[in-house]
């Protein structure tokens, strides 16, 4: 039998209730995440891709217990964590950390880098004593390739890329098994983005980290991930190994996303699939297949019956079509 995966998400549901009216009754619900499942093995990168509003970030926050679930289960290394008390959850927090998108709001503007990095160390009782703590802080700064002199500075003295390094150092501080990168490089310049991506890949190799890489940037995802999960309107429409998904997408949405990735070679033949319209509101999702309102291949069955994830064990997709017409 295989060892349990590091992280297993089983049928995750997260609805945000909309309250309104005189008495604050529930007037609607936003289905941010609707029946979503995936696993991440130790040392593996899973990229969660999708357009804005598809529920990617909610998944990341829910895994960390920053927002309570409406349904489903989250297992960390064989322990169910979605229903733990706050105190017991706190004891597991050192195993999962997060790096946010905006490096300007993810660091407390009033705390020096040293204070910021000490926080997880003292909270989790790691690196006891000031000498040990100091050594660990320098080690972390070395790992993210910041000079040790950075420890005494305040966040606003750094550039965006440097701040993101600080945020990564903070995430590394409690020696986690899993780091959730919530659009961690999306706000950075292209050259800085590449540095941070390479840094993350180096750290993964060095420390055996698992990464849940939430992104909308497919070029970067293809560069760093082992597996890809494509999200649309709160659900996974396709999940599989990187090469399989990128070379032979099985879901029309994946195909459309991939066709939108710019290619460095201007002479390469390109066939853009331009999707009409916007993503429907998760407050009022379409019946049947969530994607049928924009799918170029939709037929009657898609409007009525929601396709289940199917395919082989590694590459699964949620589409009634066995083969996309374009691939034939």
């Amino acid at each position, binding site marked *: 039998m295989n060892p349990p995966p590091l992280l297993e998400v089983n049928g995750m549901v997260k609805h945000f209730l909309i309250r309104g009216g005189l008495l604050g009754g529930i007037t609607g619900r936003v289905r941010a995440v609707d029946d979503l499942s995936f696993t991440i093995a130790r040392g593996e990168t899973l990229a969660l891709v999708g357009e804005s509003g598809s529920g990617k970030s909610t998944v990341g926050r829910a895994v960390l217990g920053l927002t309570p679930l409406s349904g489903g289960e989250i297992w960390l290394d064989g322990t169910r964590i979605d229903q733990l008390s706050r105190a017991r959850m706190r004891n597991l927090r050192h195993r999962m950390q997060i790096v946010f998108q905006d490096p300007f709001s993810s660091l407390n503007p009033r705390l020096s880098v040293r204070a910021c990095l000490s926080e997880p160390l003292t*909270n989790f009782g790691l690196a006891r004593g000031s000498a040990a703590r100091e050594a660990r802080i320098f080690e972390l700064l070395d790992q993210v390739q910041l000079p040790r002199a950075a420890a005494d500075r305040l966040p606003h003295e750094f550039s965006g890329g440097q701040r993101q390094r600080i945020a990564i150092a903070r995430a590394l501080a409690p020696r986690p098994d899993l780091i959730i990168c919530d659009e961690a490089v999306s706000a950075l310049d292209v050259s800085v983005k590449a540095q941070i991506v390479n840094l993350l890949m180096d750290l993964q190799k060095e420390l055996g980290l698992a990464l849940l890489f939430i992104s909308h940037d497919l070029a970067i995802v293809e560069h760093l991930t082992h597996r890809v999960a494509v999200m649309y309107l709160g659900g996974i429409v396709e999940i599989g190994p990187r090469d399989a998904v990128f070379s032979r997408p099985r879901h029309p949405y994946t195909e459309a996303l991939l066709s939108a990735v710019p290619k460095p070679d201007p002479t390469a033949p390109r066939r853009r699939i331009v999707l009409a319209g916007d993503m429907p509101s998760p407050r009022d999702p379409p019946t049947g297949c969530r994607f049928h309102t924009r799918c170029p291949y939709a037929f009657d069955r898609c409007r009525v019956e929601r396709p289940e994830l199917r395919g082989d064990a590694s590459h699964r997709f949620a589409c009634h079509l066995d083969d996309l017409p374009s691939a034939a």
Partner: protein
Amino acid sequence: MTASQFIAASPLPEIVPQRRRHGKFVRFILQHPTIFAGLVLIGMMALIAIFAPFLGTVDPTALAPVRRLRPPSAAYWFGTDMLGRDIYSRVLYGTRVSLTVGFAVALLASGVGLAIGLVAGFVRWSDAIIMRVMDGLMSIPSILLAIALMALTRGSVRNVVIAITISEIPRVARLIRGVVLSLREEPYIEAAIACGTRAPRLILRHILPNTLAPLSVQATYICASAMITEAILSFIGAGTPPTVPSWGNIMAEGRALWQIKPSIVFFPAIFLLLTVLGVNLLGDGLRDALDPRRTLRL
């Protein structure tokens, strides 16, 4: 297809900036003339309050019916009132009352309002209860509330401070609650929770310091409004007892003689005006300087 573009990137971080120089406070003051002007005015008033006995004053409560209603002169700089008391001395001693009330109310209302606002903003279930009570308090005009509270007690500076504080607390609580609610959504708060930070430390270290800027601005406005409220309370006889000279008392006593001796009302009014102006200038300056859209931080 895109792997090559990443390999080309330099792995070296950018240069870490130089440490800033000292003398920040002096530069900060020079860059904000309104704060400077406000501090000068308040500083002058504070000096007057502290050194009132040494500024050529006499006993402000000494009655001398013989010399009543003297015009301003070399002997009586601001003249005398209908009981022959030296108005210059009374106004200078009155500074003590006004500043005491202003600063005490600002400190007390900020402190209590901060605590209430933090609880309301942080403990979700308590929010509705606390804020409805605060709304209820706020629906009573603060001057009426203060009059009502004073009617229940004896007139004394301490009771004036308590009465005005109670009517000012809800505004601070509401402000702080709003700031806490918006801070809670900041990624660095979520990151701190993910880093295992417990609630008390989260509040002390991450939330409290970020409420101090709006709180200090609000405190200056409370200070100014408390001084005015004190004067109004004294003017209508519901504030400091007549034995304690305060600007409101002096003006109230001079009210009947306004047409023949306007100087009795004029001098305390000027002092009140300058003090409130100073506090408001400080508040406006702080508000501009602490605007989160600027990078300057105290």
